[in-house]
């Protein structure tokens, strides 16, 4: 009886543990090893030490090239995503949550904003490529701008080295603002009505209540959502693959780290080099992992 009960939990856990060990944990360590190899395809015979990392982080014009100024490449693009996409999607999601909270048709407007979350990045990418079409007879954005601005010349939004990143970032905001909105909206409902009522009695207007009461009280939730969005940015792949094509935009202008991992490993056939990119992704998420672990232990300890 005693021995049976000691084995039972392991029988429940075994299928999951086996799959996770064989398909996630072991490969993760193996990829760290592969990142130290050069050469073509899946032949890992040419040990190069840290050379892949040195090249990636100093001398790869598609990843990070320190000899150029201003630097370009996947790392720079990911930083651009981080500093533009993250605050914008948080701000827009928050504003929609707060505005929707004050009207009767709240559930309808929330469904509309949330809808892009359900569809694939592939479909969303096609929807936005259509909006961005260079022909003002087809693309909505160029049509609207042509109608509003006299003498406006249609722009190839995703065909331009300078415009493709903002164009894809806007599409990503369209996809994820609904996620931010749903989470923050739920937290907003959790703020006790008495607090808001008291502020109103004291003569606070809508904007003051938003800035002085709602935003500070939402602080912890906003930071959780921000972390989720940062992870999304680090893993960003399919939207760029769809909207920028397999080259990652004109001259590879829209490439990001996860995109480079795919292209180097599977299109250029440099699996060791691509593995080094994957290891860089892992290193970037480790601080977030530690943060999550700390938060989890704090919650479990309560």
């Amino acid at each position: 009886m005693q021995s049976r009960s000691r084995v039972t939990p392991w029988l429940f856990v075994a299928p999951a543990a086996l799959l996770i060990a064989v398909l996630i944990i072991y490969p993760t360590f193996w990829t760290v090893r592969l990142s130290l190899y050069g050469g073509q395809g899946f032949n890992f015979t040419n040990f190069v030490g840290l050379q892949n990392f040195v090249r990636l982080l100093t001398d790869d014009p598609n990843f990070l090239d320190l000899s150029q100024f201003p630097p370009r490449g996947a790392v720079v693009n990911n930083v651009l995503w981080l500093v533009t996409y993250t605050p914008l999607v948080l701000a827009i999601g928050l504003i929609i949550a707060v505005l929707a909270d004050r009207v009767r048709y709240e559930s309808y407007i929330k469904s509309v904003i949330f809808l892009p979350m359900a569809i694939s990045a592939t479909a969303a990418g096609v929807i936005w490529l259509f909006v961005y079409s260079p022909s003002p007879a087809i693309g909505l954005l160029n049509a609207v701008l042509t109608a509003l601005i006299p003498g406006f010349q249609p722009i190839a939004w995703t065909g331009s080295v300078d415009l493709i990143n903002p164009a894809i970032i806007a599409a990503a905001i369209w996809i994820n603002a609904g996620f931010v909105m749903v989470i923050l909206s739920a937290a907003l409902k959790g703020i006790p009505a008495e607090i808001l009522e008291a502020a109103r009695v004291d003569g606070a207007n809508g904007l003051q209540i938003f800035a002085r009461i709602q935003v500070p009280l939402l602080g912890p939730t906003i930071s959780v959502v921000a972390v989720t969005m940062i992870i999304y940015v680090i893993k960003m792949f399919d939207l760029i693959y769809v909207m920028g094509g397999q080259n990652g935009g004109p001259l590879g202008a829209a490439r990001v780290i996860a995109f480079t991992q795919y292209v180097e490993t599977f299109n250029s056939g440099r699996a060791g080099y691509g593995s080094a990119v994957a290891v860089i992704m892992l290193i970037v998420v480790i601080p977030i992992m530690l943060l999550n672990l700390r938060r989890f232990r704090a919650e479990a300890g309560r």
Partner: protein
Amino acid sequence: MTAASAALSVRRVPLGSRIVRVIARTPIHLSLLFIGAVWLVPTIGLLVTSFRERDDIHSTGWWTAFVDRRFSLDTYIHVLTSRGTTDSLAQNFINSLIITIPSTLLPVLIASLAAYAFAWISFRGRDWLFLTLVALLIVPIQMTFVPVLQLFNVVHLTGNFVGIWIAHTAYGLPFAIYLLHSSFAGLPRSLIEAARMDGSGELRTFWRIVLPLSVPGIASLAIFQFLWVWNDLLVALIYLQSPNLQPMTVGVVNLLTTYGTEWDLLSAAAFLTMGIPLVVFFSLQRYFVSGLLAGAVKS
């Protein structure tokens, strides 16, 4: 503020300030109207396009369709039957179903078993194992592609659906166990203990008591996993190289690469991929949102 208290406070204020209030709220309505349009119009544009005739699509904007009123199903017939160089999107659609259904059921079942042990059986190393799981939630799957492909090559899992079922199951497990653990752990302890007192074995307690009582949590997990797999592009690109096995997302990308911006094909193809997620979303929105709130920590 609840609807009831809102109604009360409106009734209390005199007519004059009520008018002021309505005017003061106009900017809120206008902003929401604008935001709603920005979120809805791009999708509607492509939807309308998918029902137009080919020549119209390539010569005039979709917004003129409301005046012309010439609609057809040609685009859908075209992408679902033959496209010449590759298989039809109908095959991709079937592939998506074949990939998605086992890739949803397997992780839900396997994660339920593990989550039950983590939530209700105490064993040595449990906390340590669960922390590993929390850490794994955000390990980029990119770390696994090359070694898993090497493994699949050796055991002949690259040219069929079995490989991608296993891959999607493994990739989905950390989040699935995490989500179900919080759902299972929320059940009353007395219930589980009463079952054990009655001599119910662990498997029976799991199957007869914990699973039936956790249907909402399981439902939201199943919806997430279903949408995640159905909408996936990256994992399919990696593990399914053969065109006659590829799902809808890869089919749409292939259209884009082969034909460029052929909006008649692309619009219909995009809506075929969106159909099932939209049905799932509208019919099961409640579970979707509750799952989202429970798993906000996830990658």
